[in-house]
């Protein structure tokens, strides 16, 4: 973890999370297969997020889930998990561990701060806790997870420098 900013009611840190994107039909066989590997069922409601101290599991769309490991795993284990999931012809799991960057944004002014960079409606009544969204932040495609007291924002790693500079710039001004 790297603390990026802490100022004016905003705390931003960069996290070393790992991620797997899973595609499937969300039916019984799919759920069983996932449960068999990580002892949890994928969330069933669109944009729903379930979380524990080990991972975030979110349903991105009707046939896509993201599994984010909050505690760094042995990468070989992740590849092994992907391989097991992919042994089922009707599921596609792709490794997203190191092609993404992750930012944790918290603090009382997090909404106002993020709304400098995105038009997305972050009000609790429109973006409830434990839901996720895919939207533009600082003009780039990002995924944002609302974990009640903080947001996890992820984007492609190629944007890392640009995105960090935009975050710093917004705090500065």
């Amino acid at each position, binding site marked *: 973890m790297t603390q990026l900013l802490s100022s004016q009611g905003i705390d931003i840190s960069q996290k070393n999370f790992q991620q797997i*994107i899973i*595609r*499937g039909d969300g039916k019984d066989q799919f759920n069983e297969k996932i449960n068999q590997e990580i002892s949890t069922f994928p969330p069933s409601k669109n944009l729903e997020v379930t979380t524990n101290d080990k991972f975030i599991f979110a349903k991105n769309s009707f*046939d896509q889930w993201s599994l984010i490991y909050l505690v760094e795993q042995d*990468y*070989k284990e992740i*590849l092994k998990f992907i391989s097991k999931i*992919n042994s089922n*012809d*009707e*599921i*596609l799991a*792709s*490794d*997203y*561990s*190191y*092609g*993404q960057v992750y930012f944790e944004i918290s603090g009382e002014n997090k909404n*106002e701060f993020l*709304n*400098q960079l*995105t*038009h*997305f*409606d*972050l*009000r609790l009544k*429109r973006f409830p806790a434990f839901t996720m969204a895919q939207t533009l932040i*600082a*003009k*780039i495609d990002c995924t944002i997870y609302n974990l009640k007291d903080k947001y996890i924002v992820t984007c*492609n*790693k*190629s*944007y*890392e*420098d*640009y*995105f960090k*500079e*935009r975050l710093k*710039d*917004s705090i*500065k*001004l």
Partner: protein
Amino acid sequence: MSAADNKNSSYITDKEVSFKFDGKKYIGYEGDTIASALLRNNVRLVARSFKYHRPRGIYTCGIEEPNGIVQILNEHNEPNTRATVKQIYEGIRVSSQNCWPSLNLDIGSINNLLSPMFSAGFYYKTFMGPKGFWKRIYEPIIRRTAGLGKPPKEFRSKSIHQNHNVDIVIIGGGLSGLITARKLINTQYDVLLLEQDSFLGGILKNSKKIKRINNKEPNEWINETEKLIKDSKNIKILKNSLVTSYNFTNHLIALEDKSVGKKIDNNKSELTLHKIRTKHTILANGHIERFISFRNNDLPGVMLAASFEKYIHRYGVVPETSPVIFTNNSTTASLLKSLVDLGHKPAAYVDSRSKDKIGRKFLNYLEKNNIPFYINAEVEGCDGNKKIKTISIKKSNKIIKVKSSMLCISGGINPDIHLFTQSKGLVKWDDKLVTFKPDVSFQNTITLGSVSGNYNYEKTVEEINNKLSFFKTKNIKLKIELNDISNFNIKELWETKHERKSNWSKSFIDLHNDVTTKDLKQAVREGFDRIEHLKRFTTNSMGTDQGKISSINSLGIVSKILKKKISEVGTTTYRPPYAPLSFSAIAGRNTYEFYDPQRKTPIHNWHIENKAVFEDVGQWKRPWYFKKFEMESMHLAVQRESEQTRKTAGILDGSTLGKIEIKGKDSLEFMNLIYTNAFTKMKPMSSRYALMLGEDGMIKDDGIVCKFNDKHFIVTTTSGGAPKVLADMEEYLQTEWPHLQVYVNSITEQFSTFNISGPKSRDIVSKVFTDVDFSNENFPFMTFKVFDYMDTEVRIMRASFTGELGYEIYITPNKALELWKKIFHFGKAYDLVAYGTETMHLLRAEKGYVVIGQETDGTVTPLDLNFNWMIGKKKKDFIGKRSLTRSDTSRDDRKQLVGIIPIDKSEFIEEGQHVVESERLPKRITTPVEYLGHVSSSYHSPNLNHCIAMAMIKGGNKLMGSKLFVSSTYGTKNIPVEVVSPVFIDPENKRLLS
């Protein structure tokens, strides 16, 4: 008489502030605008008019100001600032604009004497000829003289954008806005209250029209309300925020000035552009007073009556203690009363209304206070040099001259419908109020107070409770007591009759753009009797004030000329922005380094350390070429890189390539449908160059397909095409082929990609990946292997985009740099060279490989590129198949890909040049020159030591060996070229398969 202070005003502090106007130092008070401070100092002449350079003074007290437009020298020379809005601060330096050599003596004022020449339509009629005059004379002169201020110098804005999502927006923090906000306190609604001024109150602070609210002084009530709002959980106030645009879907733009009354902090943002999305918009933005046209109604000293009143109460300055008041309505009564209450006496009160309309009560008041008054009378005009000296009042065909330096006029009040009409709401004419007012809303828009045409403040609460009854709120109860002497009434009057005619005397309808009532009449005479045409012909209300104080007047005058009702004449369109806003505010932080997001590969820093010069490929920063030494040119670097690659080995960071993983039990069928190639017989763990077409049969993208098995593929796409290809795949799966059980994931960023090629590439990769057998037998061309390496998984494919023996290496980004360095470590013995995109292009052109987007442009089929071999002819279907059999796509004379080389090998062919049959172009081209095609790629090949080029030319396949010509940028002589095969190097593929 001169200006005086109103010590009763509580909005201005007694802290003195010094400032400079046109180099001269003045003292104002903290809270003063430039205009109020200048009026306090008896400065009447503040500007010169746009066209005639006539002397102009402060006319209003707000954003509607047409005259007092100045330049702020110490704020990056910020031009076109409204003196009536901009607050002063210690050390602010202000200058007048559009005058030379000085405001007092402006040479440009000669235009006023030449004004008969500059009537409506002057520009359209005058600059038609003689031929050549436009370029050499008219345009340079107009460019030099056009505009008002001078642009800012060396200015780098730090304006920011702020997004809001709310349930209700209230525009205007005056009486209606505040009552509405009180009603919404601690309800379920998220509310944003926007106020253009630095304080709330509006009319309550601008006048003494309202005596008490709930038995409280207006000021006390405002403070109480503001506190209640601030303590509430659901309402946020934004002051100094002017709503400039009301777009579709209740999307509003407001501009907040964050440095009101203080010096700009260069380290902070000076402006915030608020982008607001709301469910309901409540317009409580009030009204704007309009003027009356009469002779010399632009002289410094003429001011709108409500603005005069505003200066008294808001800024504590009485611009003139004995002005003349000229009105056609009842709103000026409060101004007169304010003056009398302060112990001043107007020089005259002129009212065009009859005794009955004015009312006995008010007449008694005038008599009691011994104020000279003229009823059923008009101001004929005023005279003076650079400020008013005498005012001519016409009553019963007699002219009475009154001496005063100021004339306060009121031609009635207009609901401020600009934002309402921007929202596409419809307005209607009200005969009683003599103005347009909102009628039918197009969006969720509610108008309250005077913007809705409700000029009776006592009825404001009732209106709010009625119109907002659908919100889940309680009714609000407030008692409003008025100071006003009479209810609103008005007599229609747009212009008074002139008695004196001269070139100097003019009756203006648009002060900002110097349009006179005579111009309107002339325009109608010339046939411009439609209001939108007339507006453009005369430029009436087309200034930065959008004719806020005069546009309705022009409708009134035109309606009289046309003998129509105003409602029949119609209105012009009020367009956003409501008031000017700077480009820097619109751009926000999306400038300079943040203009466009930048994407970098994991090897980016290595590239910088190794003197890479970058080029933008979409948002990617890709090494273009690497400089070996500082002075090395691109040409030399590219020649060196490509020579070395063909000699030993070169490596390219190809991480930007799009990558998509495809899996599912119907993947094979999906692949056969998406690409032109056939994949059914393709062996597992092999790869294939593939083409993707649009439904029109034109090439859309290309890439390499890696087949794991019939249910699992990984494909590459072009760097720029990756998002589109993925989106198209998803769309086809969801709309055209929902029966296919296939999933696709973008893995572009999940793998870094290096392309190593050259005769020594096998030796190098064998040393890096010691466990892998790279022999021709065990690792043939267009196959791939996946294996564990450096605690991760690596995929290596034998493929090449250079024509040399080559390998593409895929690895997770966190290990990419380490592997890249390792390859260089082992590559050193073979003089491995890093090369950029320019060398990549040269190498692929030597081999005749095409680049999608360079050889193709959306009109090229696979057949045009002689890619017939890539089309699975036995396939039942694929995207674009039907289109390839159309007569147009299969004809022989389509533009086809060929190679061309100059006959004189020392010549160089430029990309984009035309391929023609004729050796010379005529000096003057009078008839079309037949064009065969264009040069799509051209390079100097270091390996062949001459220029090689690819071209798309008509019937190219049949022209092999022909002599044609290519145009050049030097003269009319064309370069003779020979049409050859586009494969210049290794047509037998010996290198590739070595």
